[in-house]
């Protein structure tokens, strides 16, 4: 009887601890996967900028999206090599940010007037040839997401932000 109790407690503790640690470590990636799946469902192709429509109550795909911002998103897939991302500066607030597949904001830079941002996103440990003027951004896996945010509280500013996308790039190096 005592042996059975010991086995019961041992199995309970081991499975409890193992499942607890497994779940807690996997949660950020699971949440990120759900977030990117929602974005992919909008028809977003990896390694290309997708210009999101102006945020409304009806089309808001992710929680806490800001209706004052124009968003563009690029789903990163580094399986075929590094991805180069560039965006011009603007007169109003803007930023370029990169998130890895467990949601960490690994890079963010404001898009200031006449100060374009150029980055090369690659896998950590991979040998890269950095283009002149570009900043290297390493991801721990082959997947991530890049986001452009620009101030757009009015339709006119939203269209101005859209206009800057012609000068923006997200694609394989």
């Amino acid at each position: 009887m005592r042996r059975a109790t010991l086995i019961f407690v041992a199995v309970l503790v081991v499975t409890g601890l193992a499942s607890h640690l497994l779940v807690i470590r996997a949660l950020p990636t699971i949440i990120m996967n759900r977030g990117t799946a929602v974005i992919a469902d909008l028809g977003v192709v990896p390694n290309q900028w997708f210009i999101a429509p102006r945020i409304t109550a009806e089309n808001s795909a992710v929680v806490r999206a800001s209706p004052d911002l124009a968003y563009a998103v690029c789903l990163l897939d580094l399986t075929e090599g590094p991805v180069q991302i560039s965006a011009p500066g603007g007169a109003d607030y803007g930023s370029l940010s990169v998130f890895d597949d467990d949601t960490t904001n690994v890079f963010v830079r404001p898009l200031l007037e006449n100060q374009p941002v150029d980055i090369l996103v690659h896998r950590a440990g991979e040998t890269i040839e950095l283009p002149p003027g570009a900043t290297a951004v390493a991801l721990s896996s082959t997947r991530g997401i890049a986001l452009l945010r620009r101030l757009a509280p009015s339709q006119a500013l939203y269209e101005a932000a859209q206009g800057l996308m012609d000068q923006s790039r997200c694609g394989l190096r």
Partner: protein
Amino acid sequence: MRLAVLILAAAVLGLVGGLGSALTLSGLVSDRIRLGEIVEIDGWRSNWSIGTEAVDPYTKAWIARFGLFALRREEAVYFYTTVDAAGQPLDEECVYALDVDEQPGSWWSVTVYDGEGYLPKNADGRLSFDSTKAEDLGSRRVVLSSEIPEAGAETGEDNGYWISTRNAGAFDVTLRVYQPTPVAIENPAQAFVLPPIKRLSCAGETPS
């Protein structure tokens, strides 16, 4: 046979306990648990750990749940509150006003989200109020209401100060400050002056 049943029962209990404790501690079951570097100012709350490489897996999971795609504090900070100045939960049945002071950053905005974190499902087209609107109107007063306030009752004939809470239910208010100053990041309690949300009236009540 009896031992096998015992082991199976222990394994199932362990799995349920492990899963439940992980979801609870990471805030997925309830938002009452808050991890990371919490900043609280006059009833508003922010998490300075958002976007950063979290030091422990619990904080990391919590941040993934509540701050997906949110920027790190050097680029933007997010304050939110679910209660008014009297500590009562914010509700679409009531009308509120807040006067937003100038913030220590390049741009700020106020947005209402429903209990699930989504924009209120209505077609009023009044989802937020930001510093560019405040500049245009010459006023930083914001009114939260499920009905259109009387034109000109506050500032501006077009009710530009209005955020619609129609269909928001029990809601929260988020105040974003982009590109906060380094001093504000270092000493938030001294740098940020966050507005009390004053309840003006509620459905079924005589307006105060």
